[in-house]
């Protein structure tokens, strides 16, 4: 199928699903749940078709409102959507995890009220993330970023009868709104200076005339997007938001939101807009410094947690550190083979971590749902009564540490290898981070395999709608782990090549004009 024809349906289907949810809701509970599953399933189908099309044919450009982005002038006047392989990987990741999270919610959320709003919001969250991944327009990017952020504020505080939901929601909302306004300010500065909002045309204008304004705008973008990705000095909202949110939502927050809204957007802006207009080395080292702090702080804080979901939240911060490290080295060693491998590792790890952290969060949700506690001190001996869940957790934990037969190994290996070549100190820091990470997960597993606690004896494995998403994710992790280098060579390295080829990104829109 032609990717060009299906790209708009990536936005149309979730929008249609979200807008019709209040009407479908009138038909009752079953209709609403079926509707949410159908909509996200259809989005997954479109997302996979789009990924295949982009992988086959390269960059895809779609103009809203006409055939060509150029008007009668020779510069783009319309909103364009531009999907390269990196964007397509993100689309596949979002639609897959989004679908599984919705299926999981059928069982997990059934004791809550106000579920019509819940399903509307979760579809809107997915819509916002898809929009960020496909857009080629800076203001369009901001709008989708806000759609994503506002939906996630509302979803974090969804259980508004618990104190922690409200507290985390308020914290996340205040911090996130400030971060968003930084990004808006950066966009306003760029628009005032260069008079365009199309990413590719802006890249041309920037290369012709690099100004101080552009650097100020870049600083604002980096600050705002590091906030959104939960990098270290500003990770505190994340550690509160993830435990407080329903588990299906924390799977989407940890797995997707911090990567699309943070890592993807940062990569897109740095590679595709700023490209060669600023010193890549300087920017790369700025990112590397934050990455090292994030690595150590996130993983070290994970070790001392007693709350299962808080541990997973800090572990997400730590893994974001790896991705940022890969991104930073990819920038600092731009154009060399080391940089390419580091960037491939970062993209690969983004995808892998989305799967593993979604799996682990969903399992944490199962444990909370069955036992009503997140305290690791009360969870000993879970392996006796919930064997399937524990086994899936074992797979997820081994993958996140980076055990060889699983998918986390290849992506982390690429990052270790490139960081050791680039600068041995960075390699050592990455290893220390992994040591902490291992300690944290071994601690959880040790608890699970310990002597059964009275509370645990009554627990059972969950029902099908909650178990199947977990099984699918675990199988995906294992299967991806069997072909690590094939995936790396066929998908991740070409994605990096496409990302570094800024000229192709620009000329896909401007078409030689």
């Amino acid at each position, binding site marked *: 199928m032609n990717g060009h024809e299906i790209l*708009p349906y990536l*936005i*149309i289907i979730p*929008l*249609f699903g*979200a*807008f*019709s*949810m*209040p*009407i479908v*809701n*009138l038909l009752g509970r079953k209709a609403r749940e079926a509707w949410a599953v159908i909509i996200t399933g259809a989005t997954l189908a479109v997302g996979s078709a789009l990924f295949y099309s982009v992988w086959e044919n390269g960059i895809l450009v*779609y*103009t*809203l*409102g*006409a*055939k060509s982005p150029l008007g009668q002038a020779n510069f783009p006047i319309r909103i364009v959507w531009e999907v390269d392989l990196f964007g397509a990987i993100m689309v596949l990741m979002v639609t897959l995890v989004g679908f599984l999270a919705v299926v999981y919610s059928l069982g997990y959320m059934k004791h809550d009220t106000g579920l*019509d709003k819940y399903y509307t919001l979760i579809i809107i969250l997915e819509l916002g993330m898809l929009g960020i991944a496909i857009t080629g327009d800076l203001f369009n990017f901001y709008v989708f970023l806000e759609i994503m952020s506002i939906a996630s504020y509302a979803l974090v505080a969804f259980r508004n009868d618990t104190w922690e939901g409200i507290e985390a929601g308020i914290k996340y909302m205040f911090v996130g709104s400030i971060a968003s306004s930084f990004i808006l300010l950066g966009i306003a500065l760029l628009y005032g200076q260069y008079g365009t909002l199309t990413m590719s045309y802006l890249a041309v204008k920037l290369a012709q005339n690099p100004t101080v304004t552009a650097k100020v705008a870049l600083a604002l973008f980096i600050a705002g997007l590091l906030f959104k990705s939960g990098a270290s000095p500003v990770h505190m909202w994340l550690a509160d938001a993830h435990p407080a949110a329903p588990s299906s939502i924390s799977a989407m927050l940890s797995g997707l939101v911090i990567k699309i809204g943070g890592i993807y957007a940062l990569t897109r802006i740095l590679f595709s807009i700023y490209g060669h207009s600023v010193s890549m080395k300087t920017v790369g080292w700025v990112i590397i410094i934050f990455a090292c702090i994030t690595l150590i702080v996130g993983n070290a804080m994970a070790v001392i947690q007693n709350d299962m979901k808080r541990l997973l939240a800090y572990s997400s911060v730590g893994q974001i550190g790896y991705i940022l490290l890969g991104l930073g080295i990819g920038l600092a060693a731009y154009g060399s083979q080391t940089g390419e491998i580091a960037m491939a590792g970062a993209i690969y790890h983004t995808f892998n971590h989305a799967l593993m952290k979604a799996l682990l969060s969903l399992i944490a949700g199962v444990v909370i749902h069955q036992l009503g506690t997140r305290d690791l001190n009360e969870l000993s001996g879970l392996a006796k009564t919930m064997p399937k869940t524990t086994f899936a957790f074992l797979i997820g934990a081994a993958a996140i540490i980076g055990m060889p037969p699983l998918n986390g190994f290849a992506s982390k290996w690429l990052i270790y290898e490139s960081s050791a070549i680039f600068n041995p100190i960075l390699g050592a820091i990455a290893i220390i981070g992994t040591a902490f990470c291992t300690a944290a997960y071994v601690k959880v597993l040790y608890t699970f395999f310990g002597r059964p606690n009275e509370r645990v004896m009554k627990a059972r494995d969950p029902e099908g709608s909650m178990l199947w998403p977990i099984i699918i994710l675990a199988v995906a992790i294992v299967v991806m782990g069997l072909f690590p280098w094939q995936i790396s060579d066929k998908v991740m390295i070409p994605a990096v090549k496409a990302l570094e080829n800024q000229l192709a990104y620009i000329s896909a829109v401007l078409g030689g004009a």
Partner: protein
Amino acid sequence: MGLIVKTSARAIIPLIGIFGAYIVMHGHLTPGGGFQGGATIAGAGILFLVAFGLDEMRKHYNKNLYSALEGIGGLAFLGAAMLGMGVAFFYNTLWHNGPFFNGKPGTLLSAGFLPIMNLAVGLKVFTGLVSALTAIALYRRWKS
């Protein structure tokens, strides 16, 4: 509220509503549009809530109806955007090939799908704001 407020609200609410509808309908000709007009009409709803009180509002407000209307507003917007899918998403086919809304620029029936989108946004904003404000007004009690 007192008698004077209620009586003047009776007189003013239709005026605000008509003015808001005017802003929505002339969105493609004069300043304003769906959001501004919708917010103006919502102002009429809020004046009703404030002047006549929560009990009266409860009789006239139907949650399902308002959220369904909000959804319909969104769907109408999306539908208008999809009319020209043969060329592109958001392609203004009504303006380029008719059959209606393709009059002379400056007249009411011009600008293709824009009047439809303004009506849709106006409906969505009005129902959304009234629902939000009513929900806040209905919020349980002062103390827990």
